[in-house]
Structures are given as structure tokens and as C-alpha cells.
């Protein structure tokens, strides 16, 4: 039997945050991981993003109350359009992704915002109604990673990711 509170706590343990002040969490799930974050770090402000509007609508009353109790330091944004709107504003907050193992679904917003299948990139930017180059310019610096410090040899040798990183490294050589 799964215990979502325990899973949330374990997830926060795994983050190993050091003196965080502001964090963006992609994936709301049932919210227990968010409550754990806010409770464990008294000064921390958390913004949670989730592309699924229906999630918010399906919250039981007790969960809504848990959110409300922490509303001064916990904010949740639902729906792709609102998430994209949020993402257009530069931020220096760290971004982490929550995978809701108990419900076994992928939260695609992390990938959508920051990598693999981004609605803010390429054709999907046009579909979302945003200007591509503006969206690209506004993507937050959420990982202190310079392309030169990404070592493609640490990725699987023939993986797509390794090949992509190698091309990009040539651009800044």
C-alpha cells in the first residue's frame, strides 16, 4: 500500500537542498511533497507547476485546506497556458521535478519547460501562441550548467543526448 506522505518526505530527503530560499517544483501530484518542503524549510517559498487543470479541480477538501494553510509560502499554478506565462518571467529559483510514483503518471511540464518536448520551443511555441525567440530568451537559469561543463562522455556513448551536447560544445569552442 503506497504512502504518499512518506514518498513526499523521501523525495525531499533526496533533494538535499542547502539553504534554499525559492524553489519551483514541477508536478503537484497530491501536494504532500510540497507540504513537506514548506514545513521542513521555514524560509522557503515554493511555486508548484502542473499542466493539468483537472488535477486542481479534483482535489479533496482536506488537501485544499493543506494548501490554504501554507498559502503565504506555497503557490500552485495549473494549466499549460498559465504555466507558460509563468515561465516567461526570468527567475533564478532552482527548479526540481516531482515524479508522482503513487499515481504512476509522467508530469511532462519539466520536460516541456526546460528540455525535451518544450511547448516553448520550435513549432509548439507557435501553437501556444508565444513568440519563439522571446520565450527562448526568458527561460530561467535554473541549473548552473555551462555547456562546456556538460561532459558528453558521462552520458551513454551513442545516446542522442551525448551527440546533442557534442554539437553544442563545437559551437562555443
Amino acid at each position, binding site marked *: 500500500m503506497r504512502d504518499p506522505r512518506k514518498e513526499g518526505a523521501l523525495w525531499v530527503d533526496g533533494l538535499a537542498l542547502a539553504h534554499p530560499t525559492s524553489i519551483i517544483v514541477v508536478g503537484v501530484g497530491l501536494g504532500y511533497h510540497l507540504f513537506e518542503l514548506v514545513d521542513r524549510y521555514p524560509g522557503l517559498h515554493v511555486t508548484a507547476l502542473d499542466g493539468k487543470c483537472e488535477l486542481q479541480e479534483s482535489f479533496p477538501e482536506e488537501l485544499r485546506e493543506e494548501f490554504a494553510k501554507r498559502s503565504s509560502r506555497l503557490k500552485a499554478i495549473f494549466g499549460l497556458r498559465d504555466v507558460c506565462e509563468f515561465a516567461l518571467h526570468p527567475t533564478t529559483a532552482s527548479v526540481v521535478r516531482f515524479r508522482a510514483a503513487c499515481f504512476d503518471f509522467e508530469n511532462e511540464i519539466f520536460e516541456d519547460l526546460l528540455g525535451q518536448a518544450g511547448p516553448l520551443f520550435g513549432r509548439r511555441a507557435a501553437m501556444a501562441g508565444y513568440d519563439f525567440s522571446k520565450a527562448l530568451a526568458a527561460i530561467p537559469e535554473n541549473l548552473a*550548467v555551462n555547456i562546456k561543463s556538460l561532459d558528453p562522455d558521462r552520458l551513454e556513448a551513442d545516446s542522442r543526448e551525448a551527440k546533442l551536447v557534442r*554539437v553544442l560544445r*563545437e559551437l562555443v569552442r
Partner: protein
Amino acid sequence: MKTLVLSLLRLGDFFQQLPLLTALKDSGDEVHVLVNDSLRPVAPLFPEFEFHFFPREILQGVLTDSSKSTLGAIHQLRVFVDDLNANRFETVENWTHNFLSARLMDLLDAGVKKGARFQAGRLERDKSGTYMNETWGPSGAASFHWIDALALSMGRAFPEIPRVDGHRSGPVLLQVLTSDSKKNWRLGNWKKLANWLRREEEDVRVLCAPFEKETLIREGFAPETLAACDLAGLCDLLGRAKVLVSGDTSVLHLASHLRAPSLGIFLGSADPRKTAPRALGSKVLWADAGCSPCSHRNPCSQAHHVCGEKMSLQTVQDEVAHMMRKDPQPQLHSPAVRLLEGTKTPSGAFALRDSRQDAVVMWSQLIWEFYLNRDHDGAVAPYGSAAHAIIRGWGGEKSLRAWSEALKERLELSFRLLEDFSESLWTAMRDFNLEESLSTASETRMREVSSRLSVLWRDTDFATRLVESNLSSDASPFVRLRGRKEALQEVYELFTVQRNLIRVIDQELKERSAQHGARA
């Protein structure tokens, strides 16, 4: 066949590649070209090709801005590649030959891939690709024009060479600035040339980019002569031009495509053997300052612009007058300036006509074609027909015999030097096996030998790879040794091809002499 060509270089390089792209199109391929996003303005001028634009500047902007996410660049590149692969190309050819393009090839899907490419982490290059990178690139005496070398490396026939249209009565165009100050002829000379042309009642236009206009006005050029136009406007002017006089720029190469008669002024790092305007009847004035051509990457190494100073106004003026009015060919005022004219060899490659070098160029090209074409399925001319081509194109059996004797002596000496090099190389490899370091004596000897070979073959590029292999700065001694071994193998084969061909030529000449004797 749906073919994608990677042409991730500059505007002038794309213009030079047009004959090869056209040949591809004429062979029935649906031709797609991947260019940098900065070349977008070019696309409407060539609707026969399908263009794709590599977002180089956007990606570089993201990667070098610390407020932007690196993951954004990774994702954007992924989407770009997915979109490109959705075209389902049957063949992808890399005409760029640098590490960026080779890495990009690894991401592209196609049944056939040609040119430099990474595969499973290793750089794959066939013999022709190796020639491009390790001989042609560093060579100071290239045997082929870039486009012909590229055609060879792709296993394609040399593309057609357009002939300049010498019957035009349009403006005389001057392209006075290049992308590199060491390639520029003094602006004062250009002004005087423009003024002289106006006195000759010619319609003179000084070409420039819009951002260059103010600079040229400050330098004293008459504003009414300045033509700051976009690409479409430039094409219109070049399509009507009586003559274009230009430094080594993209405008010169566009002029070749549009068959405008051109006179290139090649200074600094500009090397006409590699990048002359590729048209029959195009002309180049090349100043030889001993240090020419110099390195692209470094500034001029001299205290003053020696090659530019040797290019006198009178020399340029006389040649322009000859081209415009069909005056008799003038004598060159400066012995340090060579006048070269675009022509075609019997095998269809481009060459610059200069009586000092014609025969050497023809020979070098033939030898390289022999050596490189073994990689491809196309027919390789047997030694017999190659010998006939040489005898036909030489201009006299007596001079061919004399040259053949001199070449045989040179080859004999070269083979002895190669044995010497080989011995030193094996010693070095043995020492490396035993001690994991290279012996200084072997290294020194190999450098001496390759230096001697370089002098012996200074008018060709046969020894370039061997010389370059001694200059490698690769950290691994093993890699350096392997490079020398491969270079030694190549130069040995090149000399062997020459020896075999000379034997057939000698035999043919003997038989002809015997036949003449019998008839007498």
C-alpha cells in the same frame, strides 16, 4: 533521390558551391541545403534548392549567456534535428568538413552519408576526406580548386565551369573591401582606379554593404558612385557588369556564377589556387611577397603590407583596360605580380593558366585523381589513357622528355628519403613500445627528411600531409606516430603512381620515336 547538403560556411563559400549544387540538381536529385541562419537572404535567389537554416546564432546566444538555460539550447537543437530528419533524406553530404558539421552528421538519419562524420564516437573519413583535411587544407601549393577538391571527395565529376560573358556594356563594379584587412588593397589605389574609370567615361559603381557606406564616404569616395545594395540588387548589377574588380570576397564568387568578367586582386591570405573565381576567362592578379599566401588566422606578419605594395595601380589599371577594351595583353609592371587566367584541364578540373605552372598543375591533378578515385566506383583512367592525355596536353615531346628525366631523378631521390624516414619511424615506434616515449634522434631525423621532401616537391602538395604529420601537436605520441605512418603510406603511393605513369609515358614516347624513324 532526396539529398541534403551541409553547407555551414560563409556566404562566399556557398556561392562557390553553386556549380556543384547545380550539378546535383541536374542529375535528378531533389536538393536540400542546410546553411547557417545568417544566410536566409540567399534562399529567395535560388528557388531551385530547398533551404534549411541551422539556428547557429540563436544557439550560440543561448550558450554564451549565463542568464539563459543550457537545457534550452539542447532542446532547441533536438527539435531542429527532428524536424530535419522528418524530411527522410536518402543521402546526406557534408560539404563543410569541420568538427561541428561532422558532429551534426551523427544526428542525421540517412541511408548514405558522405564526407566527414562522427559515428559511434569516432571520426570517419575516407581517403578523399583525408585529402581535403590533411593535404588540401594546410597545403601551400594546392593541386585543385576548392570546389574540384570537394567534388573529388564526394566521388562526383568536376562540375561545369561557366565562361565569362565578355560582351556586356554595363557598369564597371569595384568591390573595395574584404572581410580581412590583410586582403585589402589600399583604398587610395581604389579611389584612383575609380577616378580613372570615370575619366574614361565608364559607369563606375563602388559596391559596399549599407554599413560600409559612411566609411567609404569619409575615405573620399564620391557618394554617387557608391552602390549599397542587397543581394537581389547585387545580382542585378553583376548580371549586367562589364567588369568586376574585387578582392577575394563573396562578390567575386557570385560574379562567376553570373558570368561577369572579373579581375580578382589576391593579397594576404587569399590563395587563388584554392579559391580563384571559378570561371573560364576569369582573371587574378596575385602578388607574391614570399610570405604569400599568409595564414588566415593570424594578422600580417610583416612590418608593412608588402604584398599590397607590390600590387601597383598601373598593373591593375592596365589589366582592367585590356579587359574592357580588348587592348593587347599588357606587360606586367611588377615581376612580383602574377597574372592568372581561369581555364580547364583535360579532365574538366579548373586551373589557373600561368606558363610557369601549367604542366605542374596538370600533372599534380592527374596523380591525385588516380590516387583518390580508387575509393569510388567510378571508372579510373588506366595508365595508358592518362599517358596519352599528358602527351597531348604537354606542348611538345622534347620538353616532356626533359621534364620526365628530371622527374625520374626527383622520384629516385624521394624514394631514398622515404626509406630513411621509414627507418626512423620504425625506430621511433620500437622505442615507444619499449620506453613509452619518442626518441629525439628519430624525431629530428623525420623532421629533416620531411623538410627535404617539402623543398623537393614545393610546387605540389604531395608532401604536405607528411610535413604536417611532423607538426602535429597531439598530446598522444602514439597518435602522432600513427599519423606519420599513414602519411608515409600515402606519399609512398603518390610517388609510386608517378613512377608508374612516367614509365608508361616513356614507353609511349619511345614507340612514337620508333614509328617516326621507321617512316623516315
